[in-house]
């Protein structure tokens, strides 16, 4: 993969985020440096790319991802993406500097920077994606990291609620966006952004245009907190202030309007677009500004102001005129600049004065004159005062609002809404400055305020200067870059526009003056009322938050409970019944439609001995089913009988490997269940359960199900067995087994060579299961009625105590004395048998699985013969080491082939001449089989020993109780 600068811009933040995690926990400064250097590097890399995008070209970087689905990892940077990329990395850098002073060393700093950097990467991903699906992936990632950052102080209830709401709203939007993007892909036939941008007419004239538009807009409007989805943004203000400055004013909430602008050439210009986007934008513009006036929380005010300004951008995009798009893009940049600086100033005030409540703050100017000046300038930009950048884009906005684009009431209302929104913006901007910085200082602050350190103020200062410079000499500063961005979106449609401050005495200027004057007047009249108000006038009771909560509770609790109550059960039996019934139906339906016939294929002669064998086997199975309730031991023995018959069937029908494995597994399964029996409750027929008619009916139903399942399996099996087998892949394995696998036992060669990767997966599962069993048993608490010594041991003990010449417990030690001596003598024999099975496995029946279980049986026989304590005093078995070693050996054998340039798990074999022994085959697959062997031994022994250990644990506990 070549390291294109485009790829680096995207990858650096993620890599740095992971690197932060590796730092020690108290490293605020190193983490800050790392994050700062990363964002700065992204900024520089983006800046370097400017010449490539300046002439309307775009830079591309493409790696095939899932080409068959049209999914490529495509990055694409044109002028618009460039300017957003500059914005994100630039403000990201400033926020890092600011965060250094904002965040306290006691906070989990690494977590902050991990999420922060990952968010930066995701946001850059949204901007740079050249494929719509990729864009949606990064889009969702920004929602997730926004969730994690809002909930950064998760001990705080408001943070948790705000995070959850933001995630719910934006993720639902993201889901809609995905659906919309899939529709676009369906219409255009490609997800590639360039293809899509060329297909505007095709999309707009398609019958699926309206659903596509609605779905994509749902994504964009939720993300940009537009009406009616605006309510999540004020609740996201529980986040640390750097997060609010970065995500919730400058970048993430811009993703929605970014997307609308990105797809503007494709989707806009229709009446549907105008109505939906226009209404959302206008409502957000006015409502946001209106609600902002009433906020008492400084960050809340800024949040509603953000909604209002994003509404302005949305409204501009709705107009469908190229000049509107120019103004929208320009205002995106301007808003990011002044709002980020205001948020950071708000953080400084909160930090220094200890509160952000507008009612408690007053007269701060005398304590922090520099911050006060900066905040005042930024607020003026927010209000749209001349000589500041906010004024320029607002003038363009007014000019566009006056123009008639589509003759409708909405268009007629636009200029009035624009002036109203701007006037309210003036009011809340004045209120912000007046109530915080002016007036008499209060009796006391929670903390004595003073100016923050220089570097904490630096980002604010930088951004405020940017507002001024852009506001005074726009043509010389932002002009060329804005032009590049605009022409990359609009292409040939790029209109003539002027960024000058003075356009003569025209209607927009009059509107500006009216807005400024009436806003100031409104503050003079209503300022005191706003300062005291508890909730917004008129619409205070309509609270998006409460509606959201009501909907959430209804859906995720009441309805969910209702559905669960109707369709759900916590009882296992009905569920299993359903599974069995579904399986029967699933098998019966195709049989019913395709018909069922039997063929003539088969061995022909039926050996009576085979029939006799299975008569025994079937009797054992039915009897086991009958006895399993009251006679567990009998059922276990009968089940073993069936197992042995199965094993003999394997021998009979040419499957010696299966027979060997089945035999040893049969032994360990029996031992395992025997060990478990001890912990089950006594059950006698006298304790029979209520046997009413209903219970009998249920049993009859189960019996019918069982008979149907059995009959069905028998029929299907017979139908298959009497037909000639189709051409299968078996011949491949038979032919290649010796020639390429170097083994004569085909089954074993399949396992360790042809399908070695499957086997590696399977032994991994086995190891995991064993560890799970072990972990479960470490916390095992036996039922109260099984803690007591078993009845038999109690009888023996009382016998010992009654006899004067016997030690207590002697009978229990002496039981099975002769067999246990034999079992101990058998130990080496079993080891030799296991080794024999393992070594011959490649050429003759045997192999790692059978050998491993046999070896484990050898170990467990020692436990049975002499008891756990005796064995563990003499023999140290480390099952976990066996498991790990086996798995490692198998994996390493597989990896070794990669050293020779072959794919993973390629096996290698040759014959070697050993002195005395002669010619022996040496296949790397044998080493793999050794790994299988080790893991199977470890896993089996671990499970058995863990269970066996429970009885000594009980003894220990009992001993402690007896002699405390």
């Amino acid at each position, binding site marked *: 993969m070549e390291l294109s600068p485009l790829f680096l811009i995207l990858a650096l933040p993620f890599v740095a985020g992971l690197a932060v995690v590796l730092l020690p926990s108290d490293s605020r400064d190193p983490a800050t440096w790392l994050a700062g250097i990363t964002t700065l590097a992204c900024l520089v890399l983006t800046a370097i790319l400017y010449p490539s995008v300046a002439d309307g070209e775009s830079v591309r970087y493409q790696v095939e991802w899932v080409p068959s689905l049209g999914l490529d990892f495509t990055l694409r940077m044109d002028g618009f993406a460039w300017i957003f990329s500059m914005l994100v990395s630039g403000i990201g850098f400033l926020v890092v500097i600011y965060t250094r002073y904002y965040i306290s060393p006691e906070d989990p700093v690494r977590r902050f920077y991990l999420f922060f950097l990952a968010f930066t990467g995701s946001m850059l991903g949204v901007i740079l994606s050249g494929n719509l699906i990729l864009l949606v992936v990064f889009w969702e990632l920004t929602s997730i990291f926004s969730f994690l950052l809002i909930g950064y102080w998760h001990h705080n209830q408001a943070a948790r609620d705000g995070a959850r709401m933001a995630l719910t709203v934006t993720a639902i939007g993201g889901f809609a966006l995905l659906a919309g993007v899939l529709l676009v892909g369906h219409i255009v036939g490609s997800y590639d952004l360039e293809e899509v941008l060329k297909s505007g007419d095709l999309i707009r004239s398609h019958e699926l245009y309206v659903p596509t538009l609605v779905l994509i807009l749902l994504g964009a409007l939720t993300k940009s907190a537009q009406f009616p989805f605006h309510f999540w943004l004020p609740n996201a203000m529980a986040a640390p202030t750097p997060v609010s400055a970065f995500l919730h004013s400058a970048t993430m909430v811009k993703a929605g309007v970014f997307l609308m602008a990105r797809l503007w050439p494709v989707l806009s210009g229709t009446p549907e677009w105008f109505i939906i986007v226009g209404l959302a934008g206008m409502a957000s513009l006015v409502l946001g500004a209106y609600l902002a006036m009433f906020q008492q929380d400084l960050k809340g005010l800024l949040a509603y102001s953000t909604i209002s300004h994003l509404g302005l951008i949305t409204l501009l995009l709705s107009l469908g005129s190229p000049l509107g798009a120019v103004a929208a893009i320009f205002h995106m940049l301007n808003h990011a600049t002044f709002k980020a600086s205001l948020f950071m100033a708000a953080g400084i005030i909160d930090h220094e004065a200890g509160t952000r409540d507008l009612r408690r703050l007053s007269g701060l100017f005398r304590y922090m004159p520099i911050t006060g000046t900066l905040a005042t300038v930024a607020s003026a930009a927010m209000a749209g005062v001349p000589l500041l950048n906010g004024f320029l884009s607002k003038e363009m906005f007014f000019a566009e609002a006056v123009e008639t684009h589509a003759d409708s009431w909405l268009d007629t209302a636009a200029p009035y809404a624009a002036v109203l929104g701007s006037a309210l913006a003036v009011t809340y901007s004045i209120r912000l400055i007046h109530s915080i910085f002016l007036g008499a200082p209060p009796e006391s602050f929670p903390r004595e305020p003073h100016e923050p350190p220089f570097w904490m103020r630096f980002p604010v200062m930088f951004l405020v200067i940017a507002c001024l410079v852009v506001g005074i000499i726009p043509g010389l500063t932002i002009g060329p870059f804005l032009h590049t961005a605009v022409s990359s979106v609009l292409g040939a449609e790029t209109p003539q526009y002027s960024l000058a401050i003075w356009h003569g005495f025209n209607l927009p200027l009059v509107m500006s003056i009216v807005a400024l004057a009436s806003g100031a007047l409104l503050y003079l009249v209503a300022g005191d009322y706003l300062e005291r108000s508890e909730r917004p006038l008129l619409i205070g009771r309509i609270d998006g938050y409460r509606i959201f909560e009501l909907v959430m509770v209804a859906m995720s609790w009441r309805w969910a409970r209702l559905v669960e109550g109707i369709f759900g059960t916590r009882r296992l039996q009905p569920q299993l019944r359903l599974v069995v019934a579904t399986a029967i139906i699933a098998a019966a339906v195709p049989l019913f439609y395709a018909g069922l016939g039997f063929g003539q294929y088969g061995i022909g002669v039926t050996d009576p001995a085979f029939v006799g064998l299975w008569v025994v086997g*079937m009797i054992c199975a039915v009897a*086991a089913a009958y006895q399993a309730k009251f006679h567990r031991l009998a059922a276990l023995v009968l089940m073993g009988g*069936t197992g042995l018959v199965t094993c003999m069937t394997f021998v009979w029908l040419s499957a010696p490997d299966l027979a060997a494995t089945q035999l040893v597994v049969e032994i360990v*399964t029996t031992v395992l269940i025997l060990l478990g029996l001890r912990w089950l409750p006594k059950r006698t027929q006298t304790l029979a359960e209520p046997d009413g008619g209903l219970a009998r009916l249920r049993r009859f139903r189960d019996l019918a199900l069982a008979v149907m399942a059995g009959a069905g399996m028998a029929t299907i099996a*017979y139908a298959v067995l009497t037909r000639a087998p189709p051409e299968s892949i*078996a011949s491949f394995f038979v032919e290649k087994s010796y020639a390429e696998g170097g083994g*004569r*036992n085909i089954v074993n060669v399949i*396992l360790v060579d042809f399908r070695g990767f499957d086997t590696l997966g399977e032994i991994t599962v086995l190891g995991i299961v064993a560890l799970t069993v072990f972990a479960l048993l470490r916390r095992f*608490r036996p039922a109260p009625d099984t803690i007591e010594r078993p009845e038999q041991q109690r009888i023996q003990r009382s016998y010992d105590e009654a006899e004067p010449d016997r030690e207590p417990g002697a009978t229990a030690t002496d039981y099975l004395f002769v067999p246990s001596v034999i079992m101990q003598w058998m130990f080496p024999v079993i080891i030799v048998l296991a080794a024999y099975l393992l070594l011959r496995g490649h050429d003759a029946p045997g192999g790692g699985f059978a050998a491993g279980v046999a070896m484990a049986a050898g170990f467990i026989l020692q436990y049975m013969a002499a008891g756990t304590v005796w064995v563990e005093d003499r023999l140290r078995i480390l099952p976990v080491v066996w498991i790990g070693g086996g798995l490692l050996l198998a994996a390493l054998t597989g990896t070794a082939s990669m050293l020779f340039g072959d794919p993973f798990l390629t096996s290698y074999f040759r014959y070697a001449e050993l002195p005395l022994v002669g010619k022996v085959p040496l296949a790397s697959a044998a080493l793999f089989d050794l790994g299988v062997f080790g893991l199977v031994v470890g896993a089996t022994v671990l499970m058995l020993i863990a269970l066996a250990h429970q009885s000594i644990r009980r003894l220990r506990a009992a001993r402690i109780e007896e002699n405390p």
Partner: protein
Amino acid sequence: MELTLSIAIGVLTGSGVWLLLRPRTYQVIIGLSLLSYAVNLFIFSMGRLRVGAAPVLGPDGLADPAGFADPVPQALVLTAIVIGFATTALFLVVLLAARGLTGSDHVDGRESR
């Protein structure tokens, strides 16, 4: 032979399913074991039944596909047997733990009404 084995598979399945639907955990574990015998035999028999044709090549390594039983289902069943043991062990331990925690060996952790 085919008929015998088919009936056997059917009977094992029936016994297994019956036990699977019983209320006691021990019955379910025996039922699952019986069911896994049936399923293993079923998968194994999908390679068709052969007598005296074990898929082990002679010393010369001569390979005539017609002369051997199908090794593929055998390889599948071989690992299934071992994994079956592991799941039996896991289930047994879960049922013992559930019994310890709930005091009941009913599959739902409490006696039904």
